[in-house]
């Protein structure tokens, strides 16, 4: 069931502080607009993460100002404006830093949990 609805126990808000990394990762594949990013995160996480549009658009503005994203307005078929984001070189570097950092933490937590399970 992929029809979005109110939060259920199965889908949770993105973990605090990881939204930036998820955005950067998604955009490292191809330039995308806001809704595209939200859907891609939900699909790839198989609906575990639900992206709040307010947080997403705020984060996009912040990342763009930080110089990690470039933004470009494009004309859509029905003559509306759509804002497409792409990763800059600085953004790529930032993604590497953040994902390395995340992996380090995640494996540390995993180790801790394993110890607990055994002990």
């Amino acid at each position, binding site marked *: 069931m992929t029809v*979005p609805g*109110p939060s259920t126990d199965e889908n949770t808000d993105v973990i605090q502080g990881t939204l930036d990394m998820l955005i950067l990762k998604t955009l490292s594949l191809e330039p995308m607009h806001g809704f595209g990013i939200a859907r891609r995160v939900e699909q790839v996480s198989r609906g575990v993460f639900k992206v709040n549009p307010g947080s997403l658009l705020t984060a996009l*503005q912040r990342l763009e100002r930080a110089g990690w994203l470039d933004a470009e307005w494009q004309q859509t078929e029905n003559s509306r404006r759509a804002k497409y984001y792409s990763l800059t070189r600085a953004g790529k570097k930032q993604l590497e830093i953040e994902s390395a950092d995340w992996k380090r933490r995640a494996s540390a937590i995993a180790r801790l949990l394993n110890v607990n399970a055994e002990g």
Partner: protein
Amino acid sequence: MSLWRQLTRGLRGLTKHAAADQDVADEVQHYTEQATAELIARGLSPEAARRAVQLELGNATIVREQVRASGWENLVRTFFADLRYAGRQLRNNPGFAATVILILALGIGASTAIFSAVNPILFEPLPYPHAGRIMMIWDFDDNGSRLPLTFGTYREMLERSRSFDELAVMKPWQPTLTGAVHPERFEGQRVSAAYFRTLGIQPVMGRDFQPADDRPDSLPVVILSRELWQRLGGDNLIVGRQMKLDGKLSTVIGVMPSGFENVLAPEAEIWTPLQYDAALPPDAREWGHHLSMVGRLRAGVGILQAKRELDTIARTPVAEFRRPSHAALESGLMVNSLQADVTSAVRPALLALIGAVILVLIIACVNVTNLLLARGAHRRGEFAMRVALGAERTRLVRQLLTESLLLAALGGCLGMAVAKIGVQLLLALSPAQLPGVNAIAVNGAVFAFAFAVTTVIGLAVGLIPALHASRGDPHTALQQGSQRTAGGHQQTRRALVVVEVAIALVLLVSAGLLLRSLQHLFAIDPGFNGSHLLTMQVQASGDRLDDDSTRLRFFQQSLDAVRHVPGVSAAAFTSQLPLSGAPEDGYGVRFESSPTGRPDADNGADRYAVSPGYFETMSIPLHRGRSLDEHDTANAPLVAVISESLAQSKFPGHDPIGHRLRIGPADGPWYTIVGVVGNVKQASLALSQSDAVYVASAQWRLFVDKAPWLVVRAHGDAAALTPGIKNAIWSVDKDQPIVRVATMDDLLAASAAERHFALVLFAAFALAALALTAIGIYGVLAGSVAERMREIGVRAALGATRSNILALVLRQGMALTALGVAIGLIASFAATQAIATLLFGISRLDLVTYVGVIALLLGVASTACWVPAWRAAQVDPAITLRAE
């Protein structure tokens, strides 16, 4: 790069906010459409898809706001919104705004004015290169006070000390310029050659003094101040010209730069070398204690290090520099920084003033805080509404702080105007001898100070009310309306009033003590009758009067001429004038014999060479014997009159008449005591009088004084006689300058000028504090009565009489006042320590002052309580209760 983006994107949000808003709106719109399209593609009806997207997205407006609020520019935007809102708030309550701004303006203005006066005197470095290295060096007298140095000590230190780059000595010099239409007397200094090098300032024109100029046989040379040079015509070729000073031709060798500030003798405008004999002949002027010494420390040498070195030299005399017993340097030498030295006299008063003005500022802030709290109580409904509409607590605090900062800023602007006026007043009031008075101005440092004070005040006065307002449950606040309950803010306001009362008491006590000191001071008998007395200094200058007998004849003839001026009842000359502020002219006095058995021990006494009729003119009472008269001529037996204090100490219980004494040199002539007169205050009213010896001018053998003081007793207004007396003297010799004309009343006032200055300021501060406190008490009680209307109505309905209610409110106000007074008393005991040096004749715990001040404060407080209490007593229960 990213900083650049932050800046440009943020600025775009501020300057083109319509376009920036459109971008955000478009992006949200696009997001919505995409989401809807996706759902439709999955088979939902357009209607259902829109609903589902609505649910997921929430309110699109909120999303837009969220994005808009995330940039830094939003802080700027809300700040301006807050500012606009605050401005509107103030415009809607002009009375409140005006009161607060006025109180703040007075507080900020007063403290800024005081700061601008104190800063250049106490804190700013003196206007010399590396001014911190310039030191004053003094000898010690028997009491451990500072004593001018001898030239001999200077020579020894110059040769033996290694701590100083330069050392110089100086003494006052008042040359008279003759040869022009009118004789003119200048204030100047005799200095050793290194004087200007010690200060680190060079002449702009010509050259500095050289050691060759500073020998007893050198030709007379002078350096002029720029101002004097301009007064003399501003001749660019003046260097090398000669001017006739005291009858001698002196060559001008240099002119000092404009703005050269000579803190060691602010009046001086002409300088000449000291020209003392470096061979140090014994018993000559080279061994008199009359020189000030200034030195410039070597780089890297500290003041303590220098003091230790000088003390070591003082303890180890060498044969090369033989010291007489009166300059043996047994106590070492005193080393002070120049800044501390020139400000030592005024420092306690200025620091006390800073303390006082800070207290006034605190009272002003407390008062404004109180007013803001009262307003906060009225605006509780508004705050509750804003919270209910989603405003966060921090947002509310920020808005209220913006309001108080705006008030402080407006108060600060007005305060600068107040400060400008205040500085003018300070300058008009300040005693003339205040060092650095010329530097007092409203400048950059003062602006910075005022700005800092304003900001701190804005935050300080706003914080408590802001926290109060943002606290509390919006629900109950909305429900209850605002008028019925007295909340916690009343507690805070009462505490603040107690603080106000306490501070006001401290200021009132200080002002009261100063007032009583001044009363004591003016109640002191100076030993003569000062009213209707005109004084002036007459100078004998020029070659013609170099001869002693000619000079004496000139003064005698002048006196005769003056006595014939209509309106003059008596006139006399004296070599030194009580309370004139001139340095005391003291001599060692040795008696031939004394019942105390110590006829010549430690007797320094003021020496007065007076013309006949001096005691009668001054109305100094004759206690024994006779006074000095016309028969005491140069050829008559030498006689002297001594002061009562000297008679008491040397001839306790005996008649001193007929005993003999020597004045000055041990081989001098004997003077026979013929009379005893009352004690006279010579230096100042506050100091105990020193012993005095009077001789007839004609019988003073050492020299004839060149610039004696003329004292004239008038039948009527003394000052009005000035032109007539000057003309009478000039009719004898038109070339003799007459200076320092003043009535004795002026001199008496000047001798208390610093205390008077402190008193005026303290009184002003104390009255301001008292007024602010009264406003504070009134405000709190009025607020409390307004909030308790219903309760009071109920009480009245239940049978409380008007006087019951009156007493209820009065009791509340006076309880706060009493608590404030109690705290203030304790604070006063401690705080008056700061003004102890300014007090005279009373203890700082003077009971009369405390009782008087407390009575005054209670009186004012009860008046402030009376109005709200009376209003409460007028409450008609029927009306109040029906209003519910």
